[in-house]
């Protein structure tokens, strides 16, 4: 039995393609470009990999032979850390039509069943069990739901895609067929808060997925080329992404994740927060209960996004504002100098200390 999969990124809303044939695809909130990150949340790396990449990994592990990633032309084209051989990325203008065409293509290639999923509906269900459920139910489309409602994950008989009554729908009114209940971990990625939740769940071990990189000590995950200064403190559980730098006297604590190419400058505390890729966080700051991307900060406690215009506080970029500690010949000197310079410049800010 051959299996295919279609993962959709960036389509929004409900599209009616034919009478009685409704393809009500995705919950719009999470799939469009997000104000905090400027790309679909499913493409944002969290704990080392994006949700899309994690979904692909699960599909491949379930024995899916061919995976198509359909990207709405308005959405960001995803980049994957791993090299997937049987994964094809295709930018499309009309997502429902593209799904239909892809299903027809699969049917011609003798792929009988296909998973159709929105990239932001991350579910750690047993995909093979879902497939067996679908096969036993003998229906064209099997929808899924969890305790919070319908999920954008279906199993479809590819040959049925050309039928006029073929329907994929998010709502409960998705035909009379049996739906599959997902008991396992689900994250819908409707809001950047869900990214933070996923980082915490990954680090706490609430879900199967684990952070990328190596666990250098219990609960502390470090990715390739991550650099933590010996006078910095990383309190487990935490994740430090590849190429990121944690400078002297900085503290990363309470399930915080620092994604790739970030810099946490001297003396800054990152607590219960996720710093998304390519973000520079300045010196002597307190980042608590927040998701930070470049110069934008979402405070989870206040539910407010702030754009910080001062590049010395936060900015987009992969290098620290002060001299890099990576020059191993003079790491302590450079850090001490940078702290002293800062203190001289901001003499009145002695309250901070």
């Amino acid at each position: 039995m051959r299996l295919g999969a279609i993962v959709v990124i960036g389509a929004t809303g409900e599209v009616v393609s034919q009478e009685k044939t409704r393809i009500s695809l995705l919950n719009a909130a999470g799939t469009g470009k997000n104000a905090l990150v400027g790309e679909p949340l499913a493409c944002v790396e969290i704990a080392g990999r994006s949700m899309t990449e994690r979904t692909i990994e699960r599909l491949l592990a379930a024995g899916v032979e061919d995976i198509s990633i359909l990207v709405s032309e308005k959405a960001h084209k995803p980049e994957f850390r791993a090299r997937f051989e049987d994964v094809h990325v295709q930018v499309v203008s009309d997502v429902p039509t593209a799904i239909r065409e892809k299903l027809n293509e699969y049917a011609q290639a003798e792929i009988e069943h296909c998973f159709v999923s929105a990239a932001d509906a991350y579910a750690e269900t047993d995909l093979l069990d879902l497939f067996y459920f679908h096969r036993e139910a003998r229906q064209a489309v099997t929808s899924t739901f969890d305790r919070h409602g319908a999920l954008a994950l279906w199993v479809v008989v590819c040959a049925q895609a050309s039928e006029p009554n073929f329907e994929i729908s998010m709502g409960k009114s998705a035909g009379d067929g049996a739906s599959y209940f997902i008991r396992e971990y689900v994250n819908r990625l409707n809001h950047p808060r869900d990214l933070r939740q996923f980082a915490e769940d990954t680090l706490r071990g609430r879900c199967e997925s684990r952070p990328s990189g190596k666990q250098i000590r219990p609960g502390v995950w470090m990715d390739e080329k991550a650099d933590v200064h010996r006078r910095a403190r990383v309190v487990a559980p935490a994740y430090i992404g590849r190429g990121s730098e944690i400078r002297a006297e900085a503290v990363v604590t309470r399930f915080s994740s620092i994604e790739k190419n970030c810099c946490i400058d001297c003396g800054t505390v990152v607590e219960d927060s996720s710093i998304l890729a390519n973000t520079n966080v300045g010196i002597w700051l307190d980042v608590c209960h927040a998701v930070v991307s470049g110069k934008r900060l979402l405070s989870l406690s206040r539910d407010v996004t702030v754009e910080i215009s001062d590049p010395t506080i936060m900015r987009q970029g992969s290098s620290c504002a002060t001299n890099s500690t990576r020059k191993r010949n003079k790491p302590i000197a450079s850090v001490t100098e940078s702290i002293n310079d800062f203190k001289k410049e901001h003499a009145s800010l002695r309250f901070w200390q």
Partner: protein
Amino acid sequence: MSSKGPVIIMELPEQLKQGEVKTFMRELQPLLDSPRPCVVLDCSKIQDIDSAGVEMLLQCLELAMKRDGDLKLAAVSPASAIILELMRVDRLFEVFDTSEEATRSFQTFAPVVAPQSQPWYSAGYGLADLKTAN
């Protein structure tokens, strides 16, 4: 700028950044140089604040405290509050929802009329009182 008794209420500009800070500080400096300055900074209009703005707030607080006065913040927007928290200075200021509340908070600590148990020549009575007594 307005005043309610000894309390001076000043509205901070929309942009509290490097350029605007000097102008505002020039305006505020004479007030902070007076004895026991009681200043409320109304932050309701602030839309953008950077490290220079935060530094100015700290300078003002320092000057006020040197002269045994105080500086309080009122109507701080969530965005400004986030910046203050981020820069670890939020705990240094008393913050109130409105400038009226901030003003009232000064009045609670203002000296009250001397109690009856104290002699008539204790603090609170002036030279005129002394002459009348005689």
